[in-house]
């Protein structure tokens, strides 16, 4: 304790210089925490988006993920209702959504365009996907009788714009059935949706899963998306499924979230490099400060050595000073980061849309205990390491030379 007190007094010898160094360490610490926290928040958003889009686990025909279908639903799941009933009893499961993927032409009578359709339970789809199911206008309408009456569709906003369609307008879907013949279906546009991906919105059509089966003349579904209560249950549930549903292929959300994985890989490199640059700046700053302190205290080092202090004890004293500079830096840096995290929502700052997307996203920063522990330790270790590097040689200089230093 006494040694730490002495170290603190030494840090305060040149207050302005130490304050600048502590501020550099604090800003460096805050910069790493904010930048990493931003990346973390982006990852969390992308994970959430991926989980909402695909479900925690997707079940499909064994060939569905690896082979191209020659005809619609060639690799569809047969008898999915029984499987859904069985899985619904598992406490970890929140919902199971069957989906039918199909494609064809959509026409307003004058103009026909290619569409990518999804047959799904639109209300549950909307509930499960939350903010990631962006209804731009109109509403989700379910026909009272799925065999008769009006057929409603949700159409991508960009596709509707191309076709000049608005909610309430009629369009015709033309698709190939599972037997290879053509089938058509008139739909009423009940709403326009946006996924945030411009290219996808130009092709997107959502209809009820039963209507999609009717259009394709099948009772199969393409996939079953299983939504779990907790993200951490994924691996356990997947292992159980492998045992209970051996005839199906399984994909976790991670295996399908290609965008998340590429963004994460890119951000890890960008922010990793940024962190390295910041760490180098902090290191050089602390080295500069402590090197000046060592030169100024050369005579004192000689005196302490003459009194019987070992070189390692002199170095340890400077390392304690480096530790205190680092500790002060991280305390200030954490407070600064806290203030930034707390104030960001009030400014409602938006990031511009990433390439290929049509919507931006809020600039927010997440906090994570492991990130803070690692960053704080890194800054403190840099300061201690810098102190070790600059004092090591000075502590071993000849005592007579040190005492004669002016």
């Amino acid at each position, binding site marked *: 304790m006494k040694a730490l007190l*002495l170290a603190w007094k030494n840090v305060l*010898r040149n207050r302005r210089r130490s304050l600048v160094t502590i501020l550099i360490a604090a800003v460096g610490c805050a910069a790493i925490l904010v930048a990493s926290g931003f990346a973390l928040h982006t990852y969390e958003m992308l994970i959430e988006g991926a989980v909402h889009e695909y479900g925690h686990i997707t079940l499909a025909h064994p060939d569905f993920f690896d082979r191209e279908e020659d005809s619609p639903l060639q690799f569809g799941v047969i008898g999915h209702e029984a499987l859904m009933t069985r899985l619904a009893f598992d406490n970890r499961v929140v919902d199971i959504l069957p989906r039918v993927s199909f494609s064809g032409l959509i026409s307003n009578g004058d103009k026909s365009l290619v569409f990518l359709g999804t047959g799904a339970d639109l209300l549950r789809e909307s509930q499960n996907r939350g903010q990631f199911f962006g209804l731009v206008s109109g509403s989700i309408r379910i026909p009272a009788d799925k065999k008769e009456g009006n057929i409603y569709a949700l159409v991508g906003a960009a596709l509707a714009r191309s076709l000049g369609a608005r909610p309430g307008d009629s369009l015709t879907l033309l698709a190939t059935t599972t037997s290879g013949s053509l089938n058509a279906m008139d739909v009423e546009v009940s709403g326009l949706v946006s996924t945030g991906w411009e290219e996808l919105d130009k092709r997107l059509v959502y209809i009820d899963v039963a209507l999609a089966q009717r259009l394709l003349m099948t009772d199969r579904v393409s996939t079953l998306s299983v939504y779990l209560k907790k993200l951490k249950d994924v691996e356990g549930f997947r292992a159980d499924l492998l045992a209970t549903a051996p005839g199906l292929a399984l994909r976790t959300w991670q295996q399908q979230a290609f965008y998340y994985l590429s963004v994460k890989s890119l951000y890890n490199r960008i922010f990793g490099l940024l962190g390295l640059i910041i760490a180098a700046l902090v290191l050089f700053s602390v080295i500069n400060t402590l090197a000046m302190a060592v030169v100024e205290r050369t005579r004192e080092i000689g*005196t*302490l*050595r003459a009194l*019987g*202090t*070992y070189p390692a004890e002199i170095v340890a004293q400077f390392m304690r000073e480096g530790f205190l500079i680092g500790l002060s830096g991280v305390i200030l840096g954490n407070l600064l980061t806290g203030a930034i995290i707390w104030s960001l929502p009030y400014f409602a700052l938006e990031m511009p849309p990433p390439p290929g997307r049509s919507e931006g996203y809020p600039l927010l920063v997440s906090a994570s205990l492991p990130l803070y522990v690692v960053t704080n330790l890194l800054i403190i270790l840099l300061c201690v390491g810098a102190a070790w590097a600059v004092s090591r040689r000075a502590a071993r200089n000849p005592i*007579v030379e040190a*005492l004669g230093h002016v």
Partner: protein
Amino acid sequence: MTNLPSKPSVAQLPALHLRRVAKQYQMGGEKILALKSIDLEVPPRAFVAIRGPSGSGKSTLLNICGLIDHFDAGSYQLGDTDVGQLDERARTGIRRFRIGFIFQGYNLVPVMSVYDNVEYPLFLLGIGERERKARVRDMLAQVGLDAFANRLPDQLSGGQRQRVAIARALVKAPPLVVADEPTANLDTATAKQIIELMKNLGARFGSTFLIATHDERMVVHCDQVRHMVDGVLQ
């Protein structure tokens, strides 16, 4: 039957004994012989002055005796230890336990209070806090600075600083105290007080004093005075 001479006990040994010690410096391309075959034997508890003009080699001799400099030839026995054979770590250990230093410029640590400066050598010895406190308080009382314990060195006069330096040198009761021009920066009255203080405390702790000085006021109080001229001890 022959009576063999018995090995002398530590108490009978000289405090320090230098035999034909030489020291050479390299200054630019020139070699300077700072010490030329020095022989010096100082008995325990002695108060010995080394006199001589500036550049005569007094400080170099003190530095070698205080183990903060190396000699090139000869031998040096400190008590029962042949220090010429020791590595740097062992020399540091001897300085820590057995040698006290008083510098001309006081060399107090400016961020440490008077108390902390005097306590530091005891801290290095690993002495417990209670005993450290008692010894520092006693030593500060001895040098008349008990009321100044919490002051920083730059809040003291030159004489007071030198008292602190003396207290720091003697607080661990070292067998040898090396003092380099301890009264050089002091006025006559203060110098006299400092000399008396060193003498009294040296006697109390049983320390041997080796003092480099050209101060006549100091010389008259010493048990032994040796003159040094051009690196030769006369």
